[in-house]
């Protein structure tokens, strides 16, 4: 079975950042991102300040800059539009290397690129220092609706089971001569998806029966939430980064 699924992004290290309770890291990440987004796009120095903060946290958490850089490529498909803006924008134009570029478009493109990259880097730092399990626990402690955290918990547990089932069904199909390389051979695949859905549905029913047999009455007992919850000291330590970011954002707004 795929042992790696639970740790797609998590970097197993020991550091002060890893040890922080998940809820303070989530809160810090959200506040940091909000501060970045609220910064005026022409306050270039502010974005330098944010990047410095990200690099500092990366150094403390020892996730590795190369890992951070390679993983942040995930944002590329989402920021392609940013590269088009200078050509598509209207208004005042400048010429650069023989290209006529819109000033407004350049600012717009920079805005998306800088804020997007900082947001991705902050999220990666969170994901790299917090296991999936802890992320869900943190969301639960931050009073995220239980239905969402429960769905995420089930997904975390059953993703491997489902992937394993899909793999076995595929092997069984291929063993009987199915060769789904072309569009007109998709029928087998589509039927497989249907069967997988039915199996997942039936498993859901059996899991529910097993839960009811152990006294489940519609609400998860929040028993394990109590241990290891964040203390005031944790909140203060984790607040340094978003506070610095908020300071930078406020300065940028006032000065800008």
């Amino acid at each position, binding site marked *: 079975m795929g042992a790696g699924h639970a740790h797609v992004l998590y970097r197993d290290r020991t550091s002060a950042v890893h040890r922080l309770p998940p809820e303070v890291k989530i809160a810090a990440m959200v506040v940091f991102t909000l501060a970045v987004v609220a910064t005026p796009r022409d306050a270039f120095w502010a974005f330098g300040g944010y990047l410095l903060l990200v690099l500092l946290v990366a150094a403390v958490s020892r996730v590795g800059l190369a890992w951070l850089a390679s993983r942040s490529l995930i944002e590329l498909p989402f920021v392609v539009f940013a590269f088009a803006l200078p050509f598509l924008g209207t208004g005042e134009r400048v010429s650069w290397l023989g290209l006529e570029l819109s000033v407004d478009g350049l600012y717009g493109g920079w805005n998306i690129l800088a804020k997007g990259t900082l947001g991705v880097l902050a999220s990666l730092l969170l994901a790299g220092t917090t296991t999936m*399990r802890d992320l869900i626990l943190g969301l639960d402690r931050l009073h995220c609706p239980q239905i969402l955290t429960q769905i995420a918990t089930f997904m975390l547990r059953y993703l491997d089971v489902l992937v394993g089932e899909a793999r076995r069904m595929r092997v069984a199909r291929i063993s009987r001569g199915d060769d789904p390389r072309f569009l007109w051979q998709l029928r087998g695949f589509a039927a497989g998806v249907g069967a997988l859905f039915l199996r997942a549905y039936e498993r859901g029913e*059996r899991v529910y029966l097993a839960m009811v047999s152990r006294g489940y009455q519609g609400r998860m007992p929040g028993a394990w939430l109590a241990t290891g919850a964040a203390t005031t000291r944790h909140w203060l330590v984790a607040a340094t980064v978003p506070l610095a970011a908020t300071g930078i954002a406020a300065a940028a707004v006032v000065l800008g």
Partner: protein
Amino acid sequence: MIGYVHTAPAADAPSLDVRGVQFSYPDGQVALRGVDLTVPRGERVALLGPNGAGKTTLVLHLNGILAGGAGTVTVGGLTVDRDRATLAEIRRRVGIVFQDPDDQLFLPTVAEDVAFGPANLGLRGTELAERVAEALDAVGMAEHRDRAPQHLSFGQRRRVAVATVLAMRPEILVLDEPSSNLDPAARRELAGILRGLPVTLLMVTHDLPYALELCDRSVILDTGRIVADGATAEILADADLLARHRLELPYGFDPAMAARQLTANG
């Protein structure tokens, strides 16, 4: 170790008393046609029967998940009915270990899953932690408490599944096909664990040698009725009885010799 019961069951009542239970599914298929079964406290009983005999249907009656036909189910003196508080206590007293541990273990770590049942009973803090440790110790899985179920072997997952219901300190442990899909070593290890538990046990299985190894008494359920009830060694020795109810011993297995061996090993 796991004790018997805490919320005062009647001291002389049998762990399980099933009387005249009948049940038909909504599509009209009759699954149980009047089942009577009594399991005294501390006994280990095997429930044998071919596929489709109604074994799983009967198991789901024991903790009130299925009901509505005639008859009564009484667990340690408490009769199953629709009342919420009664059902909660019944579900504590009847610990069902389902066949597929992936159905039973639904939380991301072993310890959380074992804590689920007792937490539903209202246990918190150190009391809860002790229950979890006690149940995991009983199945020899204490060192795996923080692992994810999908990273354990199948045999380990089955043992954790047993721990998840032991943590509720049940009056009776009900196992659905406990030996299915286990390799021989895991099968033997599980037998050792089950034999060591001081708890009443009802084991649903078609694995006849396993029944002989663990249970002195066996009952055969077929077409919704109990058709035989007696010492496991005698039931397995009755080739005609087994053949009538689509039960078969593994090739070359001699029940009389196996029974002598068991007695010799104490």
